[in-house]
């Protein structure tokens, strides 16, 4: 028995080593092929100098980074608004009492509209339309109305995520709350919502990553954030490298966030099984 199990362990170790070796080799071959083949394409030199120009990257990077702070600011002040509005809409859609019927319909119409229209269209319509009313100074800011457009769109998605969380909490939990003499509102607030919100954390993390990227869409209505800043550099220097720099900055934020969301999701799967 003893002997056989050591033999098995040795075999499994060998298999594992073999697997790692094959994976390393195949990756190396692929990278090597790309390094050798891409520079042989006819347009490579032009592409290299206009997309991967290290001088321009170094020159423009600090100002790109600074412009990215605008993205982060818009992202940060959108978040609480999205969380609150999303929650309210999810709760509106959960109303079952006849008196609350208009609220429920309103929630459905809202989520249908804002999930049905491309984000960029909502941004155009609100970001150009409302300042067009000729409102006085702080009320015509593209920062303000661009943020509003993002909040309206994203809270529709977040509302649906929260609603799916609410529906995933088993009916018996509501029954247990009610049987103790708790009101519907208390049952929702103390029993259903805490469980629902915990379950939808990974899904909402993915929404955060998407929002972080979509802030760049506001460049089309005015705010000088990273994408617009990169566009300015591109025009001045007739070179696309600043866009690559902007992409790198986005990746530095979104890749860890996405990995973290996946980690949370995997952890949740493990806990449930």
């Amino acid at each position, binding site marked *: 028995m003893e002997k056989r199990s050591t033999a098995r362990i040795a075999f499994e170790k060998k298999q594992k080593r073999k697997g790692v070796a094959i994976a390393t080799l195949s990756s190396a071959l692929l990278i090597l092929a790309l390094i050798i083949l891409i520079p042989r394409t006819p347009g490579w030199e032009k592409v290299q100098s206009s997309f991967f120009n290290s001088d321009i990257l170094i020159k423009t990077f600090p100002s790109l980074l600074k412009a990215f702070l605008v993205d982060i600011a818009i992202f940060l002040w959108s978040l609480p608004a999205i969380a609150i509005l999303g929650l309210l809409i999810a709760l509106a859609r959960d109303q079952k009492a006849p008196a609350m019927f208009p609220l429920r319909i309103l929630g459905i119409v809202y989520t249908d509209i804002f999930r049905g229209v491309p984000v960029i269209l909502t941004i155009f319509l609100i970001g150009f339309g409302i300042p067009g009313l000729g409102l006085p100074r702080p009320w015509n800011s593209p920062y303000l109305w661009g943020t509003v457009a993002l909040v309206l769109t994203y809270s529709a998605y977040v509302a649906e995520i929260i609603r799916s969380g609410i529906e995933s909490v088993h009916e*018996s*939990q509501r*029954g*247990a*709350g*009610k*049987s*103790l*003499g*708790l*009101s519907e509102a*208390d049952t929702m607030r*103390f*029993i259903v919502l*805490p*469980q629902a919100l*915990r379950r939808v954390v990974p899904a909402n993390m993915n929404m955060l990553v998407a929002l972080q990227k979509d802030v760049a869409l506001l460049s089309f209505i005015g705010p000088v954030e990273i994408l617009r800043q990169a566009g300015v550099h591109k025009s001045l220097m007739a070179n696309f490298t600043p866009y690559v720099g902007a992409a790198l900055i986005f990746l530095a934020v979104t890749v860890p966030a996405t990995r973290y969301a996946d980690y949370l999701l995997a952890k949740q799967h493990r806990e449930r099984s």
Partner: protein
Amino acid sequence: MSLVKLQLNNLHKSFGDIEVLKGIDLSISEGEMVCLIGSSGSGKSTLLRCINLLEPIDQGEIVFNGRDISEPGLNPQPVRQKIGLVFQSFHLFPHMTALENVMLAPKRTSNKPRDEIRSDAERLFAKFGLADRMEHYPDQLSGGQQQRVAIVRALAMKPQIMLFDEVTSALDPELIEEVLDVLRQLRRQGMTMILATHEIGFAREAADTVCMLDNGKIIEKASPEKLFSDPSEARTRQFLSSVLKR
């Protein structure tokens, strides 16, 4: 017997086309313990859920302390606070500790100070041997402990009557006894109880009255001595022999 606590008159309940309760009449006195037996689907659970007003009845009356609580439009909350219900699969709130599970409803429905609610809860935990489990989450407790916490949670509302819906059916055999002990303790204190159960031995030992439910009706109602040793109905005999054979 003494004062009538709960009186059910001609209770009917359907889910869609299926009539689950077909005219239930039952009277329970203060301090009485009634056991409901009968096969799955005979209507025991539905009956308990109707008494707790979790399911609206279609016809009939539920008279509790001399007042019909089945009237449509009546606010069920204050009634439910006086009628405790314990479920087969506990339904503890998984995101709260045992103590939080127990304190939630008293905190939200009474205006007693927090300290008093807490000490009341702690006393109940101690009484049922759970003093060292108060800070545990449900998934850190055994099935028997979870069910005892669920009973404590219902008791914390100081109900006047307790309904138990097959509270030992989801438990491993060696954990059943600790839950039955809690029921015995409540019985000694004179709690009015209705218990849907498959524990024939316990019903024989503890019940004042046993009702045999079959197909939505109480087909036989008698003292445990009578019903278990000399049932009048053939269906009761058949049910008992199949349960005791297991």
